[in-house]
Each structure stands twice: as C-alpha cells, then as structure tokens.
C-alpha cells in the first residue's frame, strides 16, 4: 500500500490490522492504550469488549482455532497486559496464531515504576514466539507486519507488540511498503533420504498406526492426512488437538489417544511396529511413561519444528518440513510403492477396544456422560464445540463427532480453566451462522462467568452446556484415586443459582436434573435462537474412564474405581 497523508501511531495500528485481514479484535481499554481506543471510534474494525483481559486472549485464541486466521487481542499496560498472560501461553502451547497488542506507559516513564507500568516484553518473552516493544513510531508498521508473519508460522504461535502511549500518539507516514512482504520459508520440505527411509519403514511394517495432531490442522494438511490413511488403509488415532482431522465416520479411526483416550487407540499404538506421528509432539498426557510408549514401534515423526524430534520419544525417521508439503510427497511416493495390505490389522486394532466405560448414575439422577452422549446426538453435524478444562473436557473429547478439524476447540496443552466460554465467543464471531456451544464445568465456568455480559451485549448466539457436578471434578477424581479420598478444596456444593445468574444477564436459561427431562431440554437448548444456558445438575462422584494413571502404561488403565463412592456403586 502506498504512503499517504500522515497518521498517528494508533491510526497506523488500525490500518495495519485492517490490511492484514483482521475483522475483529477482542480487548479491554485502559489508560496507556487510550489513544488506540480513541482511534477506534467510528473505525470499521469490530471490537468486542470482554469483561476481563484474560477472556480477550482466550477469545482471540478461539477465533484463531476456529478459522486458522490470526486472532487479535488488546489490553492496556500493567495489569491489563499481565491478565493476558494465561491466554497467550495457552496459544503458545497449542501453536495458535495470535497477535496481542498492549499499551505501555509513555517512553519517558518506562523503568520508573510508573502507574500501571510493567516490564511486559520480559514477562511475555517465555510465553510468546516474540515479544517486542516499539520504541520509535517509524518501526511500528514493520514490527506489526512482522508480528503477523511470525504468528502465522511456519509453526504458528502468539506474538506480543507493546506500544507506549507516546508512540501511539506520534505522527508517522500512513502505511508504506512492508505490506506485500511474504513469510519466509513457509514450504520447507523434508529431504529425500528421510522420505525414502519413511517409505522403506512402512514397506516392512505389519502393524502400522498413524497419530495425527494439531499440526495437521495448522498446516492445512487434513485432507492429505485423510488421503494418506485411506491409501494405506491403516488404523489411526488423534491427540486431543488432532480431533476432527480423521474423516467423519472412518471405521479405521480408533478415537482419541492418551490418558483418557479410547482403549483401542492406546492398545493399537502399544502393539504397533511402526508409528507414523504427524504434527504432534508426544505430550505426556499422550505417552504416559515414555520408555513404555509404543515400545515395539519405530517412529516416523513429521513436524515443522525440528526441536520436537526426540524431545520425548526417540525417533527413527524425522521428516522435518511443512506438513502439507511432507504429506504431499509421502502420498505421491506411496502411490507408486509396493506396500503390504494393512486392512486386517486395522480391523484387529479396532477390535482391541470396546465401548467407553462410564459410571452409572444413581436412580433418576443425571450423569455427565449421558448428558454429553445425548448432546452430541442432537447437535447439528457442523456444531462448533469449545470446552473448558476438566472432566467434562475429557468426556466431550471422547465423544465428540467433529466433522471438521476446527469444530472441536479446547485448551489442550495448557489446560486453562476459564477458556471455554471466551473461546466460544471468539469462534462465534467468525461463525455467526453455526451452532457454537461452550461445554463448561461449574469450576471453569465461574472463572469466566462475567462473559455472559459479552454474550448479552453483542447478542452472540453461544450456547452454554453447563455440566455441574458441584465439584472441581478432575481434581476430585484424582483425590479419590491417588490421594486416599482426601477431598481437599474441591467441593463446590454451594454453587450459586446459575439459572438466576444467567437471567440477571438477560440470557435464557433452564435447569435439568432429571434424566427423563434431558432429551427435550437439549432439543430446546440447541434450537434456541440467541445465547442460552442449560444447567445440567449431575451427580458428583462420576469419574472419567478409562484413565491411564500418570507415568503408567496402557496396561495399567483403570476403567472403574477400585472402591467406588457409595453414590456410584
């Protein structure tokens, strides 16, 4: 874009955001960022005022996760900026592209412990790809453009740009020549020798299993993943971040892998002689005890980030490069390769597991698993689900039926409670015509409950499916199983009246506690036009099964409590 009349730094920020294709930003104003908010008056860029900066960061993440585009959040200096930290780290852990813009005290005040001053770039350093303070307005556009490039990849992630008030007020030329500068080295391909090694390994395989992670989605390589596993006819599984990457209804998809994964998935990986790991990072919630994970297998690991190779699990073949490019080459070469038939193994792998084990609810009471089974049965196929963190997250991940890789949104790596509702707000901003549901527990929901006001103000049609078991359920479960039932500070039996609270915000809400009323209530909930809340009062002692205890193996998986609580027995 050519230079034109001069602007303020704040106007330049908005011009760059617009030019980068940003449609909406999530934020919260304050003193140091006031010049930017002032420039937003009558500016076409849409701004969503959340009720806490943490929610702005999560919402930017939800927007990015549901679209693949860069999410943008903004906050003022000091506490505004520090409140973004969790949402930014959340994006870092799951490789989600966001750009965070923070106001900073004026340059002359920096380092003086001025009002609402914090060394934000240092605080944000370890939780971002890059964290930069703009000290000269002449650098502003270049830095912002670079922030978008770096956020997008090759491995996406968060970038922070901290802008002092005087820089936002300073005059500068309005846009220059940086706009057209493309991202460097986005299509790296693995070397031919590594590709040859991978093919050779697959040729000798008898029991190969593919694992897909969030990297396939980030690289827009999901269609290639589906093509690859169909061509090979191999069983495949997904990390929680890879859910939705398998083709809908694919009988060779074994379900989610890991601590609370499907039995067939975990057992198949345990029996595999070759594991094809695509865009995943062997998180400890996936591997359990690393030296026992896939102990019979040789690992082919494809990832854009070389630092992931061998980080947790030794790798036989490392395919470093853009996953889309890697899979394109693999598919092309495998089409001409003589490979064994893996169909019988795939059938056997599927048969390794059975249905998900679940605790039974006492007479007439609701179980969370029944609620989620019924919800996924009535929800439209293209529903976007954003979960919070805890038991409900795992139950939802086990049961989700995402037909699209961006339809299941969850805080996987960081496990940030309070994520679900704001992430759904971010998602709905890009998908107003879709059903967007925040599946929350009673703990996490109360961390972001003020965002009901955001739903009301913008009439965002987010549905909140509240799984209320009156406990911090996942911690309670671990206390039951691993801490001799010493329940320390996990009792939320004095929860507030959530229906009344939602009503106070002007949001339609209903409570259901009788299993016989569940189906009709869910039908009404899913079909509600605007924002809505369905408060499901579930029995408190329900656990997530299966569970591979931390540091254990698939053979140690638990499918029921050794000593069930009286309400469960």
């Amino acid at each position, binding site marked *: 874009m050519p230079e034109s009349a001069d602007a303020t730094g704040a106007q330049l920020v908005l011009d760059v955001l617009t030019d980068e294709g940003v449609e909406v930003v999530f934020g919260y104003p304050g003193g140091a960022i006031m010049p930017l908010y002032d420039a937003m008056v009558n500016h076409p860029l849409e701004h969503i005022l959340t009720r806490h900066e943490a929610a702005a960061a999560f919402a930017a993440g939800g927007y990015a996760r549901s679209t693949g585009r860069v999410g943008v959040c903004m906050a003022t200096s000091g506490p505004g900026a520090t409140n973004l930290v969790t949402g930014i780290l959340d994006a870092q852990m799951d490789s989600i592209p966001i750009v965070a813009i923070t106001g900073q005290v004026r340059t002359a005040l920096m380092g003086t412990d001025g009002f609402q001053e914090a060394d934000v*770039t*240092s605080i944000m*350093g*370890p939780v971002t*790809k*890059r964290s*930069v303070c703009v000290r000269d307005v002449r650098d502003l556009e*270049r*830095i912002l453009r*670079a*922030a978008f*490039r*770096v956020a997008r990849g090759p*491995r996406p992630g968060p*970038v922070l740009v901290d802008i002092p008030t005087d820089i936002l007020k300073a005059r500068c030329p309005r846009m220059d020549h940086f706009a057209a*500068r493309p*991202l*460097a080295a986005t299509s790296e391909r693995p070397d031919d020798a590594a590709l040859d090694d991978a093919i050779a390994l697959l040729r000798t395989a008898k029991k190969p299993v593919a694992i897909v992670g969030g990297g396939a989605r980030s690289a827009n390589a999901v269609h290639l993943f589906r093509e690859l596993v169909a061509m090979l006819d191999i069983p495949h599984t997904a990390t929680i971040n890879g859910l939705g990457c398998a083709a809908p209804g694919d009988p060779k998809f074994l379900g989610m892998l890991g601590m609370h994964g499907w039995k067939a998935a975990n057992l198949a990986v345990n029996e595999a002689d070759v594991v094809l790991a695509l865009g995943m990072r062997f998180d400890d919630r996936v591997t359990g005890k690393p030296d026992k994970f896939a102990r019979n297998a040789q690992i082919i690991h494809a990832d854009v*980030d*070389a*630092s992931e*190779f*061998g*980080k947790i699990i030794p790798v036989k073949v490392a395919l470093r490069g853009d996953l889309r490019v890697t899979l394109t080459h693999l598919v092309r070469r495998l089409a001409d390769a003589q490979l064994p038939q893996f169909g019988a193994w795939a059938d056997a792998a599927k048969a390794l597991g059975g249905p998900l084990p679940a605790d039974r609810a006492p007479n007439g009471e609701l179980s969370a698993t029944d609620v989620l089974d019924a919800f996924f049965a009535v929800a439209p196929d293209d529903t976007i689900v954003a979960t919070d963190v805890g038991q409900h997250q795992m139950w939802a991940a086990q049961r989700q039926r995402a037909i699209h890789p961006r339809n299941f949104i969850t805080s996987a790596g960081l496990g940030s409670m309070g994520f679900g509702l704001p992430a759904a707000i971010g998602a709905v901003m890009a998908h107003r015509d879709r059903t967007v549901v925040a599946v929350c527990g009673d703990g996490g929901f109360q961390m972001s409950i003020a965002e009901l006001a955001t739903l009301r103000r913008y009439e965002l049609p987010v549905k909140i499916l509240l799984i209320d078991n009156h406990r911090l359920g996942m911690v309670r479960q671990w206390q039951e199983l691993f801490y001799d039932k010493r329940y320390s500070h996990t009792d939320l039996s004095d929860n507030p009246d959530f229906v009344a609270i939602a009503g106070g915000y002007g949001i339609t809400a209903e409570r259901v506690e009788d299993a016989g009323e569940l189906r009709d209530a869910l039908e009404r909930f899913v079909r509600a036009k605007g924002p809505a809340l369905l408060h499901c009062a579930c029995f408190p002692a329900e656990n997530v099964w299966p569970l591979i205890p931390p540091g254990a193996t698939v053979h140690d998986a638990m499918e029921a409590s050794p000593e069930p609580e009286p309400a469960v027995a």
Partner: protein
Amino acid sequence: MQLSLVMHDWRLLERIVGLTNRLGCAYTNLNVHAGESHYHATIDFVGPPDALRRLDAQLTRLLNDDKEMSR
C-alpha cells in the same frame, strides 16, 4: 557445546538464559559483540547431551523468529 548466534534483538539473551536454565543446562562463557544491524554472541553451554540438543533446536527456532521480526 559452543554456539555462535546472530541476534537482531539483543534482548534475546534474556530468553536464551531463561531457556538454558529451564532445560537444566548452564553457560560457562558468553561473549557478545554489537555489529551494525545485529549482535553476534558466542556462548559455551554445558549440560546433559539430550538437553543440549533440545536447547540447540529451540535456539534455532528462536533465532528464526528473531530474524523474521527484523525484516
């Protein structure tokens, strides 16, 4: 392990030190020279071989982002 690193933003040293500590490594020698548009650091790291390998890979990623930010 000795690495010669080119940084466009000298504050990257803060990240390098933090990362080194996080991975259970340390540095025994650190030299930094300012050039016209970048900084050249030579750092001697010590630590378990696996951790040093991870450190090397993560520093490469960090420096790539630094290079991109400077464009």
